[in-house]
């Protein structure tokens, strides 16, 4: 069976690419993923989009109890590669927020709202930040680990 991991851009390559766009923005890199500082997100994403990652496949929020992580899956149709970029935020579970990339990818509109609704991570810099699946006034964010 062919391994789909072959289409994943290795972490070091991606880190180098990101460093070229915005120096000192990468904090760590793994086999397939890259961790970077949240503040540089719009700049880096815009650069990656120009570099061929045309599509934002997914925005995911993960609750690691001590902190939150937002995972961006990118896809390049022309180069047939995938990239994973991770951003840590909300250390100590206090007001997690990352910059919005809706200006760069229209596709982030609904996905950022979903992450906000279910994980409680705010996306700064976009006008509309309201719940999507749950009703306004719902208390808590269900996908957090402390929500039972």
């Amino acid at each position, binding site marked *: 069976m062919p391994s789909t991991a072959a289409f994943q851009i290795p972490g070091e390559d991606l880190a180098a690419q990101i460093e070229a766009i915005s120096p000192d923005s990468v904090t760590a890199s793994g086999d397939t993923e890259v961790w970077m500082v949240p503040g540089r997100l719009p700049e880096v994403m815009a650069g990656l989009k120009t570099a061929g990652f*045309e*599509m934002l496949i997914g925005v995911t929020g993960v609750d690691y109890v001590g902190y939150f992580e937002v995972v961006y899956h990118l896809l390049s149709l022309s180069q*047939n590669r995938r990239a994973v970029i991770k951003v840590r935020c909300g250390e100590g579970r206090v007001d997690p927020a990352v910059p919005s990339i809706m200006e760069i990818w*229209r*596709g982030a509109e609904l996905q950022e709202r979903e992450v906000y609704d*279910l994980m409680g991570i705010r996306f700064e810099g976009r006008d509309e930040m309201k719940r*999507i699946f749950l009703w306004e006034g719902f208390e808590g964010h269900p996908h957090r680990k402390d929500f039972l």
Partner: protein
Amino acid sequence: MPLTTQPITINVGPQHPSTHGVFRMRVTFDGEEVIDVEPIFGYLHRGSEKLAESRTYTQVVTLTDRLDYVASMTNNMSYILSVEQLAGIEPTPRGVWLRMIAAELQRIASHLVATGFFLQDLGALGTPLIFTMREREQILELFERLCGARITNSYMRPGGVFMDAPDDFWPALDRFLSDMPHHVDEYEGLISGNEIVAARCDGVAVVDSQTLIDASVTGPMLRASGVDWDLRHRQPYEYYNRVKFNRPLATASDNYARYMVRIHEIRESLGIIRQCIEQIEPGPVRPETVPALIRPPVGDSYVGTECPKGELGFYLVSDGGVAPYRCKVRAPSFINLTLLREMLIGDKLADMFVTFGSIDINMGEVDR
């Protein structure tokens, strides 16, 4: 006295014949023309992703059935591929072939539902819908032979499938494969050349490919705009690199093109199933070594698969335990709705539902 008009706001759904489930839109009209749309989600939100965190990796398969409930097999497959990548399980060849046959049958069934309801939205009184449902019924009966369930199959397991196809499945599949091309011709005769369908769909809700890519839209909608992007071909998973198939593309990117792409994909899927039958070999359907409780190493995985509605992928995070730490569904139905507002504004009331039908969403997957 000057005559003035004022816009009128209508609440469409969640109870409406054409919202394909419990979707709701707050639509503002100027006469018959749509001037604003606000989609409202969440009426079928069941917290599937949260539920997955308290179930073992095998138990989550049943949850994936209920996401896009007209395409359970492809949901199963996408989830299983992600688990296999996470846990490093190598499936058996027969299991993979069976999964591909099931997934392609499911693709046909899903496209049949999409086509039938698309015509229903156009105002055809059930005839195309009942025609397509008739063939979908055959597929569901095949599934019943295969795994005992018709809709919520839960057929696949990490490493393969949970049981081999019974002997009477293969003749039934052959019968279906020999009948189906005639039925597709029948739909084409009834729908494709119809002047009213052409008049209603041609040039309606055109979106250019750049906008679609920018909005993360995948699947038949993207291919109808001329972008040759089919994950089965570009990033082959399972044994899709061992089968040959064409990828139907249209350039018009209107409702008619989206319908045509789906009809042609049905034909291609039939070809894929035939090749699978030729290449399938006897053997175990899943390896003996897969434990009952899978404990993948700490890490995460994401495998994008081409499901009937677009790219479906499960982002799984493992903390080394028996249940996924986080299970995120990249739901194509949900993300394809990003452009809904742009596509509807400026169209007539009647075209609104046709466009909505041509996107082909499933509320189970949108709201999860």
